[in-house]
């Protein structure tokens, strides 16, 4: 494959996930002005390493991994060190797989619209780096647990634990919005 073909192939894989990458980057950087730098660095780095990318790997997961590394590097420069939870032991995984509070979820989401977005923004900001990264990789990047684990270099149990906690915090935000709308 010559250089031109390689570029075409790289761009054809990149374009469908550009929006997801941008959303992820915006929500992950400590300073939002860093988002574009992180994206540009990640894309150029990925293209330079594209000849080492194998067809059997998920391009989406690979790009999220590179972008996450860029984001954490930039955040570190800003004095924000990424913190990851330690691995969850296998016996603890059941706790994170279950539903803790689904019965309390609102029936009509539309009535919460404004209050809900406000609470969700606050809740998202309250997540630690690992919770936010895992939640966004799952919700925006559609990555599998295993892929998230490889991207972040953390055990599968940690992915599930972080995801469960992140979701719980977001659910709490929805409950707060529900309470506000009932006042």
């Amino acid at each position, binding site marked *: 494959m010559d250089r031109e073909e390689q*570029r*075409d192939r*790289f*761009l054809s894989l*990149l374009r469908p996930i*550009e*929006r*997801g990458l*941008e*959303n992820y980057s*915006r*929500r992950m950087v400590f300073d939002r002005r860093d988002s*574009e730098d992180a*994206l*540009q660095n990640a*894309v*150029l780095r990925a*293209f330079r390493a594209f000849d080492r990318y194998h067809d059997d790997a998920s391009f989406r997961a690979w790009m999220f991994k590179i972008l996450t590394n860029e984001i954490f590097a930039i955040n570190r420069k800003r004095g924000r060190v990424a913190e990851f939870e330690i691995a969850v032991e296998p016996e603890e995984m*059941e706790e*994170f*797989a*279950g*539903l803790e509070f*689904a*019965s309390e*979820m609102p029936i009509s*989401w539309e009535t919460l619209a404004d209050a*809900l*977005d406000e609470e*969700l923004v606050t809740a*998202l900001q309250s997540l630690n780096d690992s919770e936010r990264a895992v*939640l*966004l990789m*799952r*919700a*925006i990047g559609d990555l*599998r*647990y295993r892929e998230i684990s490889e991207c972040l270099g953390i055990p599968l149990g940690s992915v599930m634990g972080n995801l*469960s906690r992140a*979701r719980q915090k*977001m*659910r709490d935000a*929805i409950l707060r919005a529900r309470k506000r709308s009932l006042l």
Partner: protein
Amino acid sequence: MKCAEVRKFVRLYLDSELDAKHSFEVEQHLESCAECAGLFEAEKKFDERLGRFLRHGQMTRPFWKKIEALVAPRPFAKAKILWPLALAASLVIAAGTVLVARSRPLDLANAVEECHSAYVHQITTPEFSGAVPTKIAQQFGGRLDTAAFNYRPSEPGFTSSGARLCHVGGVPVALILGHCAETPVSMIVFRKSELDHFPQTKRKLESGDPIACSRSGRYQFAARFIDDHVVCIVGDRPRPVLEDLLKTLRRADG
């Protein structure tokens, strides 16, 4: 599978992380248990709403175009790199066009060359001097006036030997024949309204140039507007000399 077990696995089921066997068991239970199905639906809606919130945000197209250009310079991007060369080539072409245009004689200069050449070779001679004879005036056909024959340079170097009616490119003109430093010089005068027959010269004179100069064959040519006439001087004399003659033109009846 019992309710407690299903609730343990339903989150994995929603994330498509359960294997086929467990997925099938969860689905079977949800079909038969209204309470678990309700919880499942609520969680599914939560996922959808959260996903909508997290995925919300417009893509910054110009930014991605910039990144893609860095990754894959397109033909136009290459063209951008070559723009100094393209600009230089354009300038050369433009300069060449101007030079060619400048070196190409004006249409009116071409037209009067034959007339003057005939005078130089004594094929054409003056028909009259002084006032325009009635017989000749009758041939104007309303397209020329006697005033056209009254222009003379006040430059003392010019001497007139007479005039005659002539046609240049189908346009009736006053041809005033004379000499400048013993060199034959012709003056051609016609109505400004006839200038449409010579569009190049018209453009040149109407572009603001007070005097339009050109060269046709071995003769220099200069033209200008005076009142409602176009006055040209042609001859084998330096261009500035012809321009000076034009600048000092006076109409005898004016």
